[in-house]
């Protein structure tokens, strides 16, 4: 599928937004402005954006503990996100969720998830809602290579096939679950192949290549929307930071991250591709960069200035009524 200039710019803007957001989060985290744990998505942008560019506001995604990229790709406001990470009253979850539970139901973002394997079953539910209410919506779960081994993930795939639901299972194989390589933890060493065994079409694509992800996701999302059932996509990708901000990454090979940043940067790949094909010129790409830089600066400024939650928020919203 040929993407329009507009679409290309949007995709690039989303990917750059994620990258700069994460770089800045790392920075602010080390300066102490962000409490708790953060898991950064930098390096994997093509996965979130390649998939979510096929989704509209009526569609759903469920994310992982590494949820900033999915949120941005699904249309969440980076400023509200940043406020959430800063634990502010004005954050996306009023400061009560934080990075690991960032969510935006209005935009079909069902939440980051602190439980590995927590999301896939939820996605089946969202897909069932779409099917039952005839909404023509699609639900996508993002899961890591580590999470691909969780029983809940397997169950969700089987259930989606049995009920022929409009769901897509995206496996972001960034090579590691914490410090454990997927070659060790995935017995078959083949996440897509294992998914295929569940009776759904499954492909593996390179996450360095936005266009490859985009194309695979187009097929999967169209299949789901047409009522032809679920699919799986394994995205071969990499993370540029540690498991979380603060991970010493001793399990990495010498120079591993430097080489990944050189060879496997999906942003670089994208720029090269669109430039070489004459689809976008450097000026346009650079304009996006400055636009994003301003956006992120603004997000951090707002987040810093925003107030913490009111004390009574502690007891609020446990129930709708009690």
């Amino acid at each position, binding site marked *: 599928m040929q993407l329009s200039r507009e679409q290309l710019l949007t995709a690039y803007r989303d990917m750059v937004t994620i990258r700069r957001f994460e770089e800045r989060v790392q920075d602010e985290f080390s300066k102490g402005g962000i409490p708790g744990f953060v898991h950064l998505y930098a390096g994997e942008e093509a996965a979130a954006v390649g998939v979510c560019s096929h989704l509209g506001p009526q569609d759903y995604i469920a994310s992982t503990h590494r949820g900033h990229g999915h949120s941005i790709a699904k249309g969440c406001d980076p400023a509200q996100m940043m406020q959430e990470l800063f634990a502010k009253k004005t954050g996306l979850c009023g400061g009560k*969720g934080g990075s690991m539970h960032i969510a935006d139901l209005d935009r079909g973002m069902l939440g980051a*998830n602190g439980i590995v394997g927590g999301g896939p079953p939820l996605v089946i*539910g*969202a897909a069932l809602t779409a099917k039952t*209410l005839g909404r023509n919506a699609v639900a996508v779960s993002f899961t890591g290579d580590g999470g691909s081994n969780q029983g*809940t993930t397997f169950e*969700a795939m089987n259930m989606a096939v049995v*009920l022929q639901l409009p769901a897509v299972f995206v496996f972001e194989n960034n090579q590691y679950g914490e410090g454990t390589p997927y070659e060790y933890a995935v017995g078959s060493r083949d996440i897509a192949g294992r998914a295929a065994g569940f009776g759904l079409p499954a492909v593996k694509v390179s996450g360095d290549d936005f266009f490859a992800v985009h194309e695979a996701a187009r097929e999967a999302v169209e299949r789901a929307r047409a009522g032809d059932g679920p699919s799986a996509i394994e995205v071969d990708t990499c993370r540029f930071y540690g498991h979380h901000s603060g991970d010493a990454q001793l399990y990495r090979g010498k120079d591993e991250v430097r080489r990944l940043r050189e060879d496997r940067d999906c942003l670089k790949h994208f720029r090269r591709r669109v430039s070489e094909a004459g689809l976008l010129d450097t000026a346009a790409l650079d304009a996006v960069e400055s636009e994003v830089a301003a956006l992120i600066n603004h997000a951090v400024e707002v987040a810093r200035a925003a107030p913490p939650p009111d004390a009574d928020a502690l007891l609020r919203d446990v*129930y*709708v009524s009690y």
Partner: protein
Amino acid sequence: MPLKSIRQALNEALAQEMRRDPRVIVIGEDVAGGAGSRGQRDAYGGVLGVTKGLIGEFGEGRVIDTPITESAIMGTAAGAAVTGLRPVAELMFCDFLGVCFDQILNQAAKFRYMFGGKAKTPLVIRTMIGAGRSAAAQHSQSLYHIFTSVPGLKCVVPSNAYDAKGLLIQAIRDDDPVIFCEHKLMYDLRAEVPDEPYTIPFGEANIVRDGDDVTIVALSRMVHYADEAADTLAKEGIECELIDPRTTSPLDEDTILESVERTGRLVVVDEATPRCTMASDIAALVAGQAFASLKAPVKRVNAPHTPVPFAPSLEKLYIPSPERIAEAVREVHGYVDEAR
């Protein structure tokens, strides 16, 4: 008013709510049964027949048979609830929470709070509790204390057909996740149940009988054993006030406290094991908030701290009996507080 069993009352509640609201669906293992088989559809209608007939009226799209996959069932229900359906999911036996608890504990129960109040998760999980059928250790537990302990969940433990219908309709209309615990020995128990839909609010106890001497709080099937015990005791001149909280979360603290303020004596009867369960919860409530009125130690009547044994002879000893309840009441009734 027509007499209906708890099974019928629940079935009627489901059917009426499904008629009223197209967003209500039923999902679980063999909730119809026979999906894709050579035999009949609706071959089960739930393993004990509670959902029988629903698929005939509402079809496969709304009465959904699943594989044996409780995490996916609960996750599907949670995900569907938060996106616009009002699922009634079945966890066949509460004992099976072990294979799916995350979707309840960390997902459904916490969405609203974690997401800053922006989520609504109108989900009902129907599940069976209780010993007494020689179903042994993994099919006889009464685990509602676990659900009760989780902020974000509501928990219902009906003891009769009238309450069962009203509470289930309330559960389905409620915008929070509700665990609805059905005692497997009570499905055939009958009571007068109106044909039309009605609701019973959560957090409102039922005062089963009045009395001024001793307060008994009993849950689920134990309400009937406590009532039996109270009959016996009445003949001995001890008048018990019997309270059925009906929901453990929210708990009608006021009714319990008011009663104890009057009687000064409390026995709590709970089929669950004794540690960190409802009997201790209620005893602690009273020890904290009605202490000034207490004239005797708070007695708890529970199953012992053991798994549920298979042999009927042992199981009978396991389950609190009317005799043990009566004995406990006599003890607190006869207690003389030397200091007071």
